[in-house]
């Protein structure tokens, strides 16, 4: 197996809901994301998958406290970094795309302006170059009529198009690791399939590493090669996608696969 780009090791923490008392939510979470892989973190609500993903980005809510463990990215411990150090990695080396794209966009600026802003911050280009780059990025994520659409506001974008725009924004810095937090949840199935195809294609073109956070094993089966199954703040099973889908060993994973199959379209 290739070297791990990201290594989460014994990561433990909880919410400080009352001062001095920490309600644990993550219990020694350990997994690695090999360079070039498409790793999925799968779990139901309350499994800790999202808080784990947010912790990688240093974006966990303010009341979250790490009590043990580390998250190493390319050998550096992200949990030991200062905010400025983290900022040099976040959005540059590691990008994230969230579930509800339209609420991630600012409603009072055009989509193009928002993408161009990221170009100028992350690539240090001029205004004119940023606009050109924005157009290239929108073409990359297959937004039709990109020249016209870049001057539209988020409310003029459908959910699927808004998610493409967010993807464009996340890709500007040519990140090595792209975290996708339920990127297609809430989209219609035909739109979901288009967005997933796009992610798979871009990954193949750029060779970047992806980490997909999802509750949907169907999405995992169609897009990922490695799977981390989480439940109740613990990692239950790690394996190749083929092994997890075809021969899960952990009882919870077995149940999850069986339940997912029961309600699927076949």
């Amino acid at each position, binding site marked *: 197996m290739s070297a791990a780009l990201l290594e989460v090791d014994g990561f433990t923490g909880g919410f400080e809901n009352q001062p001095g008392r920490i309600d644990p939510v993550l219990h020694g979470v350990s997994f690695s994301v090999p360079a070039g892989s498409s790793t999925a973190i799968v779990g139901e609500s309350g499994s800790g998958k999202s808080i784990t993903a947010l912790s990688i980005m240093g974006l966990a809510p303010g009341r979250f406290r790490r009590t043990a463990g580390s998250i190493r990215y390319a050998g550096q411990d992200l949990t030991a970094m200062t905010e400025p150090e983290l900022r040099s990695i976040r959005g540059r080396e590691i990008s994230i795309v969230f579930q509800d794209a339209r609420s991630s966009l600012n409603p009072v600026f055009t989509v193009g302006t928002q993408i161009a802003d990221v170009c100028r911050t992350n690539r240090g280009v001029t205004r004119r170059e940023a606009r050109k780059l924005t157009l290239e990025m929108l073409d990359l994520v297959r937004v039709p009529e990109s020249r016209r659409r870049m001057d539209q506001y988020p409310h003029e974008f459908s959910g699927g198009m808004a998610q493409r725009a967010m993807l464009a924004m996340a890709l500007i810095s040519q990140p090595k690791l792209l975290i996708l937090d339920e990127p297609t949840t809430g989209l219609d199935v035909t*739109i979901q399939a288009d967005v997933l195809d796009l992610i798979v294609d871009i990954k193949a073109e750029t060779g970047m590493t992806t980490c997909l956070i999802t509750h949907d094993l169907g999405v995992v*089966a169609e897009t990922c090669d490695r799977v981390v199954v989480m439940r109740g703040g613990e990692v239950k099973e790690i394996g190749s996608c083929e092994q997890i889908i075809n021969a899960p060993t952990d009882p919870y994973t077995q149940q999850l696969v069986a339940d997912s199959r029961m309600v699927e379209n*076949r």
Partner: protein
Amino acid sequence: MTPTKQAPSAERAPIALDVSSLRKEYRVRGAGRHVTLTAVDDVSFQIRPGETLALVGESGSGKSTIARCVTRLVEPTAGSVHIDGKPIIGISARQLSASYSDLQMVFQDPTSSLDPRMTVAATLDEPLRLHTRLDKEGRRARVAQLLADVELDESYLDRRPRQLSGGQRQRLSIARALAAEPKVILLDEPTASLDVSVRGQIIRLLKRLQVEHGLAYLFISHDLGVVRQMSDRVMVMYLGGIVEQGSTEEVFENPVHPYTKALLSAAPVVEYGREHDRLRLTGEIPSPMKVPAGCRLVGRCPIAEAACALKRPDLMLVTETHAVACPVSAPDAAPVLAVPVP
């Protein structure tokens, strides 16, 4: 070819929910002037007791508007809705509230459809006071029975919704719907907010209750897996119109309409290394204010012919129970006004 209307068969079970030529238009301002948006365009269907009809479609298909019209949460522009032979449209608010004892709803998000301040006991007592003549003792016994029906025990009686899990809240919503002993329950995405493990339990519960109480379900969902599990018949909608309808088996195993094919082949499957044989539509679903004049799928359809843009296709029978609105996919089929209810 003239459309043929099927003769009603007298000996069959009565129709629980009969929706006929339902139409809903909205006047909206588009490009500075008023235009008419047709959210539901002449939709008819019938459901028998003990049967589940699923309405499937993506955003903008009109499935939720149908639900709102059937429950008269919005007034339809035209058409009729009958529950067990009694009209729902064109009756007074007082008559309508009496009709709600025959027609109940379970919504997607139990967190917002339950009153956060009402205990489980109070939530279930309210419909009994409205729709039955039971006294206090009788209602208490019935509440206990309703809880047992949805597999919750009496220790939950004094809890409030926030003290219940998502699955338990949805069970409570189902019990509340059952309280009035309805003939028809409208299930609007009842499992969409639930984890997959809980989803299966709720489906099994709904199926058991259907058999025990002879309920007719109008099941609205975008989740094709759940639809396949739950329903006897499926109606696929696109931009306010029916594009295909038939038995669940027929629609899933032998989809005919290009939109149905695209929808079914886009759904992700829990299977490693599946060969992808996806039928793709081009572009995005158009704005409901710019529905194409002919077939609604024109502009996105891979098999469209010139004639498709000119005339809105009728529903045509491909088998006795399977109809599709696509003359290109089913050139030999006969047009019908309504598909016979099996």
